[in-house]
């Protein structure tokens, strides 16, 4: 067998893994690898304008498709620019392989030019990471990296590749199997535990399904619908779980937690059985932990044992794959109805609906509802940045299917949505891909407009522009006597800075500004019809708040409901 270089071995290994796209940015130590990638026609390389754009794009690609997202950056600053995106993927359990160039092996530790200890830096924000010391290990490491990233509870894996390894020669033989003695994820749930949950459902009067992002990763949506309908159990979803259960199903309570619906939070506090599926009892969900779900027996289905009994004591744990377990649970449980429970919930739904002021102003919630209506029955993926616009989307967009909602939940990374939308569009070219943004967040990775225009990746960016870092401003309004420290981004009535319409145009995208409520739908339809990338700047009411809201550290039934 003839020998080839490490760079070529890596490219061939990526082909073996079925990689179709890499988002990345070249650099000195990647020259040889870039050259080999350039020659490989089956892998599309998308040059972003910042490494952070690349890593979020790989993330969005992975979330939209369920496949492993791949990104590439050079040593030193290239690698450190990936850090936020790797941490984002790690928090939200996104399968990703990040490849970084590294200085020559003999220079590692010498503070060489563009050297950073990226293995040390990313140790706590990756599922695992590898420094390749010998070209002989490279195929095995790539194989293991993709395996680790995509199995069990998925997560990012980083491969750090010194430049000399890309030049070393070896024969190429790709391993067929993986055997890592310290890594054996559990998939099948314990049948005894599953039966315990089934019996609990039959005995209890006020059961509730609490569904998180794990349900989407596992592909358990259909099974959850089956379980919920058969045993007549209402369903609330975490921010990450939106789309796992159809929002328009009568059994849906929407999102729970800090900005969840009042009726979802009240149901949690009143429930006598909570079945958590791929959720991790995050502080944004539980609020004050010692008053969370005081009356409930808690069952928890999760593939990650560390998530069980970490924040909340669990009575019936089941470790394994949600899809498999829910299927068994749905088969095991006897048909049952909970009429009284639904009556109570219906009363809450009537008493505390999600609402906003319906007047002439451009209210953000209205914009979200209009977007939702405009893409109804179409194949659409909605991405978001982080802040008020994100919460309004989570509240008012009626997600019907899994993998249609892509947002940074755990880490709350501003600047995530737009590059993630770019990645999602590459993975799902037939879908409409929208980034709902704030005027703050969108500026964090706005440079990727160049990428989407040059690479012809048409995404629709809908900016809810209130001239503030709105979520922080909201907290300042409520808890800091309206002292708006460092949150105004523009002055009311003053010239826009930046002018998002001109900005879009300067990149070769279309820009539209909407200041009038009657023009909202028209602008959305125009944007969706347009072939290329469109930025719509919705100038919204400046001091709108996200309600309901549970103040940090409060019990989740202590909600601020806002306007009457």
């Amino acid at each position: 067998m003839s020998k080839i270089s490490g760079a070529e071995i890596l490219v061939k290994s990526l082909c073996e893994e079925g990689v179709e796209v890499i988002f990345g940015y070249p650099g000195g130590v990647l020259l040889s690898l870039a050259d080999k990638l350039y020659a490989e026609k089956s892998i599309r390389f998308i040059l972003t304008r910042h490494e952070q754009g690349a890593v979020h794009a790989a993330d969005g690609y992975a979330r939209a498709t369920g496949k492993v997202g791949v990104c590439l950056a050079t040593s030193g600053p290239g690698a450190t620019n990936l850090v936020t995106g790797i941490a984002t993927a790690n928090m939200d359990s996104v399968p990703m392989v990040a490849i970084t160039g590294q200085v020559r092996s003999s220079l590692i530790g010498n503070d060489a030019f563009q050297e950073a200890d990226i293995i040390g830096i990313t140790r706590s924000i990756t599922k695992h990471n590898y420094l390749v010391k010998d070209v002989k290990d490279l195929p095995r490491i790539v194989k293991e990296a993709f395996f680790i990233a995509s199995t069990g509870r998925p997560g990012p894996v980083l491969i750090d590749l010194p430049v000399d390894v890309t030049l070393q020669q070896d024969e190429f033989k790709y391993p067929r199997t993986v055997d890592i003695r310290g890594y054996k994820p559990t998939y099948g749930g314990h049948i005894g535990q599953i039966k315990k949950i089934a019996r609990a459902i039959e005995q209890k009067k006020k059961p509730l399904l609490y569904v998180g992002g794990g349900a989407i990763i596992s592909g358990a949506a259909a099974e959850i619908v089956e379980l919920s309908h058969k045993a007549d159990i209402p369903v609330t979803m975490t921010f990450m779980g939106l789309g796992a259960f159809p929002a328009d199903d009568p059994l849906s309570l929407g999102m729970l937690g800090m900005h969840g619906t009042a009726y979802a939070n009240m149901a949690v506090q009143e429930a006598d059985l909570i079945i958590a599926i791929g959720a991790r009892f995050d502080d944004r969900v539980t609020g004050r932990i010692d008053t969370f779900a005081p009356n409930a027996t808690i069952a928890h289905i999760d593939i990650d044992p560390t998530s069980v009994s970490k924040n909340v004591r669990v009575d019936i744990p089941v470790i394994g794959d949600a899809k498999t377990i829910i299927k068994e649970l749905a088969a095991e449980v006897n048909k049952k109805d909970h009429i009284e429970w639904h009556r109570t919930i219906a009363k809450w739904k009537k008493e505390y609906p999600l609402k906003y002021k319906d007047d002439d102003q451009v209210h953000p919630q209205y914009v979200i509802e209009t977007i939702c209506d405009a893409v109804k029955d179409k194949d659409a993926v909605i991405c978001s940045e982080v802040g008020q616009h994100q919460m309004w989307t989570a509240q008012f967009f009626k997600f019907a299917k899994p993998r249609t909602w892509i947002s940074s939940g755990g880490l709350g990374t501003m600047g995530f949505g737009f590059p993630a939308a770019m990645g999602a569009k590459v993975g799902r070219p037939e879908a409409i891909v929208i980034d709902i943004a704030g005027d703050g967040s969108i500026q964090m990775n706005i440079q990727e407009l160049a990428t989407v225009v040059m690479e012809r990746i048409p995404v629709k960016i809908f900016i809810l522009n209130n001239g503030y870092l709105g979520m922080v401003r909201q907290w300042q309004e409520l808890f800091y006597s309206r002292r708006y420290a460092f949150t105004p981004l523009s002055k009311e009535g003053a010239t826009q800075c930046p002018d998002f319409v001109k900005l879009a145009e300067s990149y070769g995208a279309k820009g539209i500004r909407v200041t009038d409520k009657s023009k909202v739908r028209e602008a959305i339809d125009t944007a969706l019809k347009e072939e290329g990338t469109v930025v719509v700047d919705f100038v919204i009411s400046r001091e709108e708040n996200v309600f309901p809201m549970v103040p940090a550290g409060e019990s989740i039934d202590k909600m601020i409901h806002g306007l009457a």
Partner: protein
Amino acid sequence: MGKFVLSALVENKFGVLARVAGLFSARGFNIDSLAVGETEDVTVSRMTIVVDADERTLEQVKKQLNKLIDVIRVQDLTGGRYVDRELIMIKVKAENTNIREKIVQIVDSTGAEIIDVAKKSVIVEETGDEHKIKALVELLRPYGIIEIARTGKIALQSETNGK
């Protein structure tokens, strides 16, 4: 709160110690001691970790350790029968023959050993469990301890479980 002895078999690779130590610091777990060394299998190291935690934190520590790809197996020795040992070296002042003799007496009666003799000090070595080591330190303290080095606990599960 209490002390728990965990024994973890890990891949004998560079960086594994940093992963384990990093896990403890990032999650705010308290390590009392950590000792690591190769096992009968050269590809595997054993880490003996003494953790100061409550039961719930201990559960998290065990799960989090197991979650590391390079950790092969974690055993909680605390519940069952196990033996543990620690090695200590104590440099004590011994400036005249009189004192030196007294130190020798202590060493002989405790099963310790003198492993280095200098003009004005000796180094005493002792292997034993925590109590034995503590007792020796207290006996030598009046003579003036110059410095101490100790390994931290290593432990193995006992096969003599009384049945």
